[in-house]
Structures are given as C-alpha cells and as structure tokens.
C-alpha cells in the first residue's frame, strides 16, 4: 500500500472484497454474542458498523482482529481463507484495529510507539534511531501529524494519539483498518481532521470499518452501513438509501417500542431521597440537577464518555465535585470517601465488576460480608458461620447459582458474579442505590432477574439511579429517563414519553435541551 502507486491499477485482477466473513458464530457461557453473521468490506470503502450495546459489534471486531476465535464461520482476507490464532497473525495479514482506549505506551516517544514490535535495526542488531525517526517522520507527514517524532505520547491529547495510532496502522501496511468509536474523545476540529484522513486512506484502497454511535457523523463519510442486532445482521445497505429514522428503527428493532407498565402512582408522590443541584466537575459533567424519589427508578443514559460514571462516583464520594450540592433525604451531604457514603445510606454497584465490585480470589461469602463485617463480630471475634449463613440467605433470596458460599467468586458466570455484587450491597440496607451498567456482560436470564430485583428494591421505597447504555434495558426498568450528552443532561422523559427513538435522538444530537 504505497501512496505513490495507482490504487485502481493495483486492484486489477483482485477480488473486490478486502474482508469477507461468512456465518460467524461466537458464544460465551450463557450468551450468544454472534449468531451467524455475514459481513464484507470492499477495497476503498468506508463501511459503518452500527448497533446497540450488546448487539455484537465488539465481538465481531475482536474476532476479525484475532483476539477471539469464532466457534463456527469463515473469514477471508483478500479472498484467502484465514484462521487467526493471535492478533499478530491478523496484523500480518493487514488487519489493524484502533480501539477506543489507546493502545499506545505513554512513556515512549511517537516514533518508538509506531515501530514497537518491529524496530528498525542497524549494525549489531541495535535500534537504528536515525532510520526509525526518518520513517516515523514520513508516516506522520502523510497523515498531517506535525509534532516531532521524539515527543512522548504522554504529552499528546486524545486526538493526536489517534493520529499516532493511525500512523502505526500505516506502518504495518494495513489493508483493513477498523476504527472503534474513533471520535468519542475528540474535539470537533480533531474529528474533522480524522474524517478527511479516513477519506484519503479509502481513496488509497484501504478498506475501513467505522464503528460509531453518532449517526450524524456517519452520513457524509460512509459508503455502506451494516446494522447488528442481538448478534445477527439486520442487513447491509448503501448509506444513501437510509435516513436517520430508518437507521434508528433498524438498531432498536420495532418490537421494542412497547411501553412499560408504570409502577403504582402512590409511590411516585413520595419525597425526594436523592437530590442533586448544579453539580459540576471540570471536563466531566456540567451543572447537573435532578431528583430521585423514594420508590422510583431513574435511568441516566448516554454514550460512553458522557460523564455518567463520573457523576455516580461523585455521589458515592470517591470523586469531588467542583461546584454544586448533593442532598440525601433533604440534608446536604459531602462524602469524602466510600466509607462515609455507605454510612450515609448510599451504595454504588460499579460498572467494572472485576476491578471494583468483587474480589475474584475471595469466596462468595467473604465478598458479601466485606462492607458489613462488624455485624458478624461475636464475643470471640468474627464468626465465619454467621457470614456463611448470611451469604446462604442472600444466595437463596436473589438466586445466585453456585455450589455453595465458599466458592471463589471468580469461578461464577458473569451474571452470577453481578448477583454477588448485588448481594453485597443489598446487605448494607442502603436507601439510595446507584447502579452503573448493572447487566453488562450478563446473560439474558440473569438480566431479567436483576431487573426484577431492581423493581422490588424500588417497591421497598428505595431511590434507584441506574446508568445504562443499553436501550432495551432503559425501556425495561425506567420510571424516568435522563439523557446525558458530553456532561450535560439534555433531555428528560417520563412514562409514556419514554421511547427508544427519542432517547437515541437526544443522546446523539442533544437537541432536546
């Protein structure tokens, strides 16, 4: 893929599809992530891959990138059947993926990052720095990255880092470039620069897969669109044959417009348990105000990076707001850490289950007892039997599937791990429950059980605030929906007004403010 050669001449006599996958199936314990997907990308086209969270986009990308192996199905690159065992295999075949979170080493220079793993060597096998920087310079010039190649990546902003990633993909002579939510953290002008680069690369014959939630940015950029829904392809269309409304209905699926039955209005009249006024934190969220009443489930929805997790963590005391006020039961609070928040009746069920929710090396009963250990102290210290008995009650109560409470939490399936996290926080008797993506990576059966639990917790008079990107989930559990975009609440929907298309419109456009 050299810039000087004529792409059309180069393509003569070759298959038109740079990538073609057929009947791709991938299952994880309890979940069918991909249920037999066909998908192809042509030389020189920009192909948008759309779908709601959990539709199978990331799994598809990871299979193509060699990170997962499919259960069934074939992948062809340039018309040749391939079977990637590792990501290195995929890269050697010309597949480059630029993930949402940067895969660069911040402590190394731009040039070193570009040539990481295939360093230019000179005499004695030592790194040839002059050649490295010269080659890196050339690549950077090609994509209009003007900073010196000796600059450390840690000094670059997100937009500049993305350019370095693209330079890295060019270095590995990518034939297929997959961009996963590339503009999620970019400014407007950085996004414009990226679009231009994507067009140039496509003109040079690279096939480009563009994954995005932002429908408005796709329209002028892409040639074709494939929509995934529930692990299946909902169809591939020329971009100009689709309008916004049609895309939204393809993503959400018509059957999901059912309106959920609202809870009895008596609970709605209850007082505000959690109240947030004018909360701001630079770079994360701005002037956020809302209330959650006793017995109410409020869902805060938006795209990744909209500032929702940060907001929850602020209420829970692990972040500090620059401005604004939080009230629990009408009294202003300012928790300085999780301990104070728990004492104040607040619990956070975090998004990063393995990182923050449970300790996988500890047993189920130890995980559940962790925030409330002092309750199990008898006259001879902690009583394991009480902890185990409590865990057994919780296991029965919320139906955790396990051979027993002594099993290591890490041995359970994703859904059951999440139930352990729930059991842990339900034990604290908190009145304000904050859920961050409660069913991410959870199989369908366990999802419904968790929804049932959330309903029941609300019915007991607790105030529940859920952060969710899963539209289906939002529709299933919300009494009220707050749409958030770039740190600002841009819409509020209640009862009958809650619909997938309105929410999607608000979080991608922010026009309802």
């Amino acid at each position: 893929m050299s810039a000087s050669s004529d792409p059309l001449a180069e393509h003569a006599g070759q298959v038109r599809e740079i990538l073609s996958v057929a009947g791709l199936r991938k299952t994880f314990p309890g979940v069918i992530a991909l249920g037999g997907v066909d998908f192809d990308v042509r030389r020189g086209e920009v192909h948008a891959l759309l779908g709601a969270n959990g539709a199978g986009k990331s799994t598809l990308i990871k299979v193509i990138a060699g990170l997962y192996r499919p259960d069934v199905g074939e992948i062809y690159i340039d018309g040749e059947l391939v079977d990637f065992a590792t990501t290195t295999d995929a890269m050697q075949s010309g597949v480059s993926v630029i993930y949402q979170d940067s895969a660069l080493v911040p402590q190394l220079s731009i040039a070193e990052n570009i040539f990481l793993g295939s360093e230019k060597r000179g005499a004695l096998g030592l790194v040839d720095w002059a050649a490295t920087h010269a080659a890196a310079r050339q690549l950077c010039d090609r994509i209009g990255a003007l900073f010196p190649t000796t600059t450390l990546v840690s000094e670059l902003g997100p937009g500049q880092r993305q350019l370095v990633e693209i330079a890295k993909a060019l270095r590995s002579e990518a034939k297929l470039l997959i961009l996963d939510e590339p503009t999620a953290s970019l400014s407007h002008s950085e996004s414009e620069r990226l679009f231009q680069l994507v067009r140039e690369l496509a003109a040079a014959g690279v096939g480009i897969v563009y994954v995005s939630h932002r429908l408005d940015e796709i329209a002028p950029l892409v040639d074709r669109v494939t929509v995934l829904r529930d692990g299946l392809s909902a169809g591939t269309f020329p971009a100009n044959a689709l309008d916004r409304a049609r895309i939204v209905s393809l993503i959400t699926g018509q059957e999901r417009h059912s309106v959920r039955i609202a809870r009895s209005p008596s609970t709605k009249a209850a007082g505000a348990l959690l109240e947030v006024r004018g909360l701001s934190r630079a770079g994360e969220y701005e002037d956020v105000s809302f209330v959650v009443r006793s017995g109410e489930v409020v869902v805060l929805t938006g795209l990744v990076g909209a500032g929702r997790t940060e907001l929850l963590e602020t209420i829970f005391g692990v972040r500090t707001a620059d401005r604004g006020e939080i009230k629990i039961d009408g009294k202003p609070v300012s928790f300085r850490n999780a301990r104070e928040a728990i004492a104040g009746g607040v619990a956070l069920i975090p998004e990063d289950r393995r990182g923050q929710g449970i300790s996988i090396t500890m047993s189920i009963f130890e995980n559940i007892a962790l925030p409330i250990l002092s309750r199990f102290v008898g006259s001879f210290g902690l009583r394991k039997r009480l902890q185990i008995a409590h865990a057994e009650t919780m296991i029965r109560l919320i139906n955790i599937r396990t051979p027993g409470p002594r099993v290591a939490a890490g041995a359970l399936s994703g859904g059951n791990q999440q139930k352990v996290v729930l059991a842990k926080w339900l034990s604290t008797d908190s009145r304000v429950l904050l859920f961050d993506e409660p069913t991410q990576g959870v199989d369908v059966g366990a999802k419904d059980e968790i929804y049932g639990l959330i309903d029941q917790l609300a019915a007991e008079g607790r105030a529940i605030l859920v952060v969710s990107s899963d539209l289906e989930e939002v529709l299933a559990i919300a009494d009220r929906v707050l749409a958030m975009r770039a740190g600002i609440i841009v819409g509020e929907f209640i009862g009958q007004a809650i619909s997938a298309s309105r929410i999607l419109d608000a979080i991608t456009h922010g026009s309802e403010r």
Partner: protein
Amino acid sequence: MKYKGTLPTLSTRGAASRIDPALFGPGLALLGMFVVYSLSSPHFLTTQNITNVLVQSSPLLILATGQTFALLMGGLDLSQGSIMSLVSVVTATVMLNYGIAPAAIVGIGSGILVGVLNGVLIGRARIQPFIVTLGMLYMIAGAALVISGGSTVFGLPRPDVDIFFWFGGGFIGPLPVPVLIAALLLGVAYLVLTRTPIGRHVYAIGGNEQVAIMSGIDVGRTKIFIYAVSGTFAAISGFMLSGRVISGQPLLGSGDLLLQSIGAVIIGGTSIFGGSGGVLRTLLGVLVIAFMVNGLNLLAISTFTQQVIVGAIIILSAWANALRRSR
C-alpha cells in the same frame, strides 16, 4: 443458563473448618524430612534436638508472622532486620541506666514506632511499600549504629540481665520461654487475621485494593495497622534475640534473618501478590527451613551447600503454589 459445578445443594451447616489445601505441600516436605533425618541420624529425633531447633527458630517465627501481614496485603517489610538491631541497642542502652522494665518499654516501643512510621508513609503518603521499607532499612540500621557508636553494648546490670536472658533462653518447667512467646504471638496473629474485621480487610486489600476502597474500607488505616504489626513483631523478636546474647548488638538483624522471614512466608504458600495465605502456612514455612538446616547440620553438610538448598526450596514452593492455583 450455564454455570460451573454441580447443582447447588445448599447446606445450612458446612461451617466446619476445612484444612487449607496449601498446607499439604510444606507439610509433606516436613514429614519427609523427619523420616529421612530420623533414619540417617540418631541425634535428630531427640527431645534435646527438637527443643533446640524450636528455640532457635522462635525469633524467625515471630518475624515471619509479622511479615505475613505485609505480604497478605500485597506489600512487604524490608525494615524488619533493622528494627531488630535498633531494638537491641536501644534496650541495652536504656538498661544500663534504668533497668529492665523501662528498657523493654522504650526498646520495643522504638521498634513499634518505626513500624507505625512505615505504615503512615505507605497508607497515608501512598509511597510504595518496597521503597518505604528499603529506605527505612538503611535509616534504622544507621540509627542503631549511631546510638551504639558502632560497638556492642555490654556490661548490663544484674539482676536485670538475668530477666533479659529469661526472655530469650529461659524455661517455664520444661517449656522454653521464646517458644511460648512465639506460639502466643502466632495465636494472636491467627485470631486477628481470621476473626477481626481489620484482619479480613488485610485480605481484601491484598485481593483487590480497588474493591476494598469501594466497599468503604479505610485502606490507609488498615495499612498503618499492618506495618505496625510487622514492626511490633520484629521488635519483640529483636528483644528476645538480644536477651539470648545478653547484649545490645547494632548488627543483630543485618544478617539473612530478614530474607529468611520473607522466604519462610513464601515457602508456607502465602501469595506475594497478596490476598491469600495466612500465619499457619508461615508456621510450616519456618519449620521447613529450621528443620532442613538442622538436619543438614547433623549430616555434616556444609553451610554453603545449605544455602543452595534453602534457595532452591523457596523457588520450588513458589512453583508448587503456582501449579496449585492454575489447576
């Protein structure tokens, strides 16, 4: 829905303690050594020899028990040896003028203070345990030399010196005092780790510190507690060993006692990444080292060769634990 294991049959009992499977490896090694040494040396399996080994390994057992706390939280304490030296010279220096009781309080107290200081730097200033305790290793070793002027503190007054020796080499009936002290401290450590909330917090931090923070555990306070325990145990160990040699030794802990204490915890099967292990494992680790060395001595194998063997056992036991976990 798929899940691992057989269908749950929830027992309301099942609370009976199970034997820690990690104890089998070192336990078997110990048993094997007893068999081999008993058969090959008539001097091994005698009351005299066993008592001697236990008395000699008491300071190490106390040290390693304290070290276990640090390793359980995913840290380590390199300053233990220096704390022993400091306690030794402070105790002896104070005893010269004020007698045994003030000497014990000030001496052991100085060691505890170092431990607390470690804890504050690690828990509140959030500096890496390795760096804090490495720095403290040098500072406190230096302080011990400064206080004693670099030479052994001799000439302790009677009858104080007899009481001092009693802690390191005395007997209550047939039972050696240092072994009793070590057993008592081991029991206390065991209870703290298994029966108190702060003990379980140690495991929680070692397992996943982020989870611990999000669960509302005061991680900083727990770390101060951990290093205070490690320092206290090192101080008591230093006091005992000084009593045994009835003098203040500025280089008491500068030998390989510190590395042996870390080695014993690892041989016992406590993970250096934290979160799993315990002081009973450490007891076995200490016994393995102590009897291994004793048997090799009886078989007239040189101390040089012994070092090679002890090192190999440390690596082998870590390997065995890695295999056990990967199953």
